[in-house]
């Protein structure tokens, strides 16, 4: 087993192990789920707000999904296939949040927002 200590199999084996581990991690976390909450500036949950998921190119924003928040202000998207996305939220008479950028490490990565989307009244 001395050949295992040789730098060639050691390096190439490490790269292979890293690639396999990464692919397993991707396979376990690419359901395309996005969950989060929408709140007001004073941290009150906003029910019935519309959250828009979109993808942007140089010129246009392409909407990829819409979700409505429940009474706790929670929303959920499933099956997205993006790695670079934008979320924006608005509610009739309840303010809006401009598009916020999110970057992911692979397409369809599950995203559980720790910080809520904050809707603010437009001035």
């Amino acid at each position, binding site marked *: 087993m001395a050949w295992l200590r040789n*730098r*060639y199999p050691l*390096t190439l084996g490490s*790269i292979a192990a890293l690639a396999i581990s990464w692919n397993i991690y991707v396979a376990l976390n690419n359901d395309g789920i996005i969950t989060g909450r929408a709140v007001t500036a004073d941290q009150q949950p906003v029910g019935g707000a519309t959250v828009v998921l979109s993808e942007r190119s*140089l010129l246009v924003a392409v909407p990829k999904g819409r979700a409505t928040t429940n009474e706790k202000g929670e929303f959920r998207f499933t099956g997205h296939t993006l*790695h*670079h996305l934008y979320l924006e939220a608005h509610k009739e008479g309840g303010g809006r949040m401009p598009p916020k950028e999110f*970057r*992911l*490490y*692979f*397409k369809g990565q599950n995203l559980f927002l720790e910080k809520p989307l904050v809707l603010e009244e437009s001035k």
Partner: protein
Amino acid sequence: MRQYPHWPIHLILLFVSALMLVPFIWVLKTSLSGENIFSYPPALFPRDPHLFYYVDVWYTIPFLRYLVNSAVVSVIVVAANIVFNSMAGYALTRNFPAKRAMILLFLSCMMIPFQVTIIPAYLITKKLALLNSYLGMALPVCSTIICIFVFKASFEAIPKSLIDAARIDGLPEWRIVLRILLPLSKSAIATNVILAFIWSWNNFLWPLVIIRDQEMQTLPLGLSRFLTVVEDTTGALYAFCIMVLLPGLILFLLAQKEFIAGLTTGAAKG
């Protein structure tokens, strides 16, 4: 003999090494943060580093496809270089009529740039029906004169008595190369592997000329295509450069000991 202190030389070498590393650190830093060289205040380390530019590269172009194409061509080139160069190198260690003229011819051919021979190379590849193929991309670099001389120098450093003994035992010439000379020339093989791999990996002009299908493009061609696709190129472009550089860098670091030994074989007689 008077001993001089080593530290001034080491200090100069350290400074020069750091200076030579600056472009590489700059590329690495930009790939991790998107800050270009003009950002103010200047910083050696990236502020707020992330790997998202690498993700952009991975998904913007068919990176894996280009990587596989480059790898296949490089494997063909490396294998062909070891076979053809070792055979040619062995032939040059033997005595035959016009050997000196042959060596001069090889050396003079080294002075002809590839760009000059690109049209005949294209026509030959077309005649062989190898346009738009892996073998066609590999063909012009399947044997390189520098590597032939690396093998020649390495074979000449092996005691002649070993070859004579093998010949007395009845080994044919090709088995002498395979069984006696190549196992004793690991450094020359490593040098061939590294040089052939790097030349093939970085080859841009020849694949650009003979490849028509986007699916057959290699990484350097992908880099030029990438420039036309991505609008904000700063971070992603440098991430692409790092991704293209990495395989060659790993190979060089792995085999650098043998590589240096291979280049210096035969440099001193004694």
